[in-house]
């Protein structure tokens, strides 16, 4: 049975931290970092994590597709916010997926992204419904470490289903070896990394080729026929050397996005794949690899259907939407890498009632309101009594999702009194086309942005509050100004 990629999407956080600034700040201690000072890396906002970035990538992939046909949603990451609470389940609630969807977190290795994709291919071939594979990473890195400079935050999503889709899977393979180039043990915040030269010579150069050669053989494709080779590590030269060794053409080595984004960990092979799929032509052959305790490889051929399956944003759109950021101090503060004086207002207890959350999960995680059965007025939250002053009918209301509806700004402020990890706190009244409104937090408002009454806003799924005392975090939807490059949604 043919298995292909039927939809795909990507998400990179908007801010791009200047590496030069980081290198200069740390030059007194680690002058050798100078070689990594080129370009920018994508950094998550304070209210983003792998769950929220995965939601954005999935929304981009799914677009206006009927979400009820999804068989499974798998989330791959090594930096999931919850160790024991299914993270994919949060994504499923945010996407408003049917409760029959099979959800799963896939973690434990930098290879988790490609391994999730390969397993999804097998599952679909075995008769599972369409599987949405999403991968996201937000690595915590030490100040003045190479990883701080080479990593990026981001997510991608790939919908694997029966039939050719936009790109059909020709073959895949995995090589497994307990090659520990780095690890992060229990209760450790940061990676422990072994020597780069060893990783290059014994890891990349020996383990990846084995998987690639098997995948090419399974696909019945010669190495020289590959147009796009995705090797998701931060150094370009390794990919070029690997290509030569494998017999891939020089021109096939894809941009690893190191200059513009950084290496997004588990998500990076899928980020690079989404990026290729936004550019590839019909008939192109794509080789995607993943590295971590061995290697994965998958070969795809682009079909005629790719043009109809392009996401609104993808990685290209994400790259274009980036804004340069030279505020290293802010990056350190929002990632808890320095101890900042947050003030007494930050001490408010953020305990979440789990009963409260469960009862209201559609409202809070899905941003689902109600529509009055008598007068048709949409309202948020749903209520047993219609809010329309001319109606007031009581009784159940129809489920009415707001997340993807066009909205505009009604009133707003930027608040320096209330506690926010990233002051000032922007919030205001947002009004939805067709009815419904909410006084809601804003996010990703560029410094110096001109907000005004009437500007279009879109909803994004974000962390609302952290509860450091208990290690919990609350998610909810926020509004952000629609970027000029992004087309209006439904």
């Amino acid at each position, binding site marked *: 049975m043919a298995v292909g990629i039927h939809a795909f999407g990507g998400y990179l956080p908007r801010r791009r931290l200047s590496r030069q600034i980081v290198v200069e700040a740390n030059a007194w201690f680690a002058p050798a970092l100078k070689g990594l000072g080129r370009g920018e890396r994508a950094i998550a906002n304070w209210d983003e994590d792998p769950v929220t970035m995965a939601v954005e990538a999935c929304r981009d992939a799914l677009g206006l597709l009927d979400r009820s046909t999804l068989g499974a949603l798998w989330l791959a990451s090594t930096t999931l916010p919850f160790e024991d609470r299914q993270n994919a389940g949060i994504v499923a609630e945010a996407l408003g997926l049917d409760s029959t969807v099979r959800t799963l977190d896939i973690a434990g290795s930098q290879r988790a992204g490609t391994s999730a994709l390969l397993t999804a291919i097998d599952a679909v071939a075995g008769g599972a419904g369409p599987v949405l594979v999403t991968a996201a990473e937000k690595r915590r890195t030490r100040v003045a470490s190479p990883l701080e400079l080479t990593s990026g935050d981001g997510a991608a999503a790939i919908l694997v289903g029966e039939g050719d889709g936009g790109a059909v899977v020709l073959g895949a393979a995995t090589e497994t070896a307990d090659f520990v180039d780095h690890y992060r043990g229990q209760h450790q915040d940061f990676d422990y990394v072994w020597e780069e030269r060893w990783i290059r010579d014994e890891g990349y150069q020996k383990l990846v080729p084995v998987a690639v050669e098997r995948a090419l053989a399974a696909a019945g494709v010669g190495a020289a026929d590959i147009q796009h080779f995705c090797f998701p590590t931060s150094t370009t030269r390794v990919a070029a050397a690997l290509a030569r060794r494998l017999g891939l053409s020089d021109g096939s080595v894809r941009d690893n996005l190191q200059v513009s984004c950084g290496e997004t960990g588990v998500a990076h092979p899928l980020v690079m794949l989404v990026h290729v799929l936004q550019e590839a032509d019909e008939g192109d052959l794509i080789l995607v690899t993943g590295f971590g305790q061995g290697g994965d490889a998958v070969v795809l051929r682009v079909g005629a259907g790719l043009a109809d399956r392009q996401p609104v944003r993808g990685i290209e759109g994400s790259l274009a939407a980036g804004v340069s950021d030279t505020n290293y101090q802010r990056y350190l503060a929002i990632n808890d890498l320095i101890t900042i004086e947050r003030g007494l207002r930050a001490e408010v207890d953020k305990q979440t009632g789990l009963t409260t959350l469960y009862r209201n999960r559609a409202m809070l995680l899905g941003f689902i309101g109600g529509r009055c059965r008598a007068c048709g007025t949409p309202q948020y939250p749903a209520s047993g009594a219609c809010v329309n002053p001319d109606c007031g009918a009581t009784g159940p209301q129809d489920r009415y999702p707001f997340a993807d509806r066009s909205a505009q700004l009604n009133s707003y402020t930027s608040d320096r009194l209330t506690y926010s990890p990233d002051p000032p*706190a922007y919030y205001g009244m947002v009004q939805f086309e067709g009815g419904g409104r909410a006084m809601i937090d804003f996010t990703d408002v560029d410094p110096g942005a001109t907000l005004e009454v009437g500007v279009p806003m879109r909803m994004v799924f974000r962390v609302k509050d952290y509860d450091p005392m208990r290690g919990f975090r609350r998610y909810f939807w926020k509004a952000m100004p629609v970027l000029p490059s992004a087309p209006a949604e439904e």
Partner: protein
Amino acid sequence: MASGIRDKVALLGMGCSRFGERWNDNAEALILEAFSEALDDAGIEKCQIDAAWFATAIEEQHVGKSGIPLAMALRLPLIPVTRVENYCASGSEAFRGAVYAVASGACDVALALGVEKLKDTGYGGLPQRSRGAVNDMYWSNLSAPGAFAQLATAYQAKHGVAREDLKRAMAHVSVKSHANGAKNPKAHLRKAIDEDRALNAPMIADPLGLFDCCGVSDGAACAIVTTPDIARGLGRTDLVTVKALQLSVSNGTESQHNSWDGSHFMTTQVASARAYEEAGISNPREAIGLTEVHDCFSVTELVTMEDLHLSPEGGAIKDVMDGVFDAEGALPCQIDGGLKCFGHPIGASGLRMLYEIYLQMQGRAGDRQRSTEPTFGLTHNLGGFPHQNVCSVVIVGQEGA
């Protein structure tokens, strides 16, 4: 058809503590300070009070729940004490309870007392607290200034007002209240400021700067009410009676239905119209001699002038700049300094407003006394946020007016 409250109840005595940073006083001391003044003023004994209503809004920060703290602070003789909370309208709510009790005939004499002790948080501004288990999970991370600041953006958009013009009118509101507060020995903030200082202050929640925000204070205020007959029996003449008591509470229209544009207070428009009707006032701008409105923020006061039907819609900026609401203007607003400078101990504020009008009507307001005593005075509280709030409007006046 209800006949309303007009002239059924008289103010017998009022008291108000000094407002401010009362670092060395517990709430109980503030309660006693306000009550002692009111009891002297009323000329009765404590045992003549039949029932009491006690207002606190953020009781977790000081006295805790229930009516017990009032009964204990004043050693009330086991009478009924009802604790009320209705955001910043709590003090007016306590007054409403006491007045209704007397009007019903259930009590001869009733006490309304409000107190708030806010300066034990360790930081400036209102205490940052939970808004309720479900609300905390989806409400924006809003502060009071941030919620009210949005009036400005919506008002500008609706009336096509330039930001600078609105800011200047807001500054005028605050400069005026500072000038008034400087003359009030019980006020929290007693320094005059000029327009430049107001305009150049640090931003709190755009476009509200520091001087657009009222003081957060410790304080208490109270009223003792009875029937006009009993008041006369106690030898009182020239009675100040209650003309109207109205409350309007948001039902979600502003926050959840797209019919509200965010530039004004729906509740204030409704409550004030009902209050004028109850008081028999057909032209409020002519009839009302003095107002004490809920100037938690300068922009609130400005917009409220329209919602009270004292300025035409879109006309408040002109009236403010023309000095209509200044101490020497035609219709003074916050002649005691207002929330802005007298201060804002939440539970006490509604009663503090009445206290000033009561003094002014009796010619007892000292340096800030109006040359002609007003016939009708209006107080207004706005609790909560523009998009969901509790609004109270109280009108008092000379008996028979």
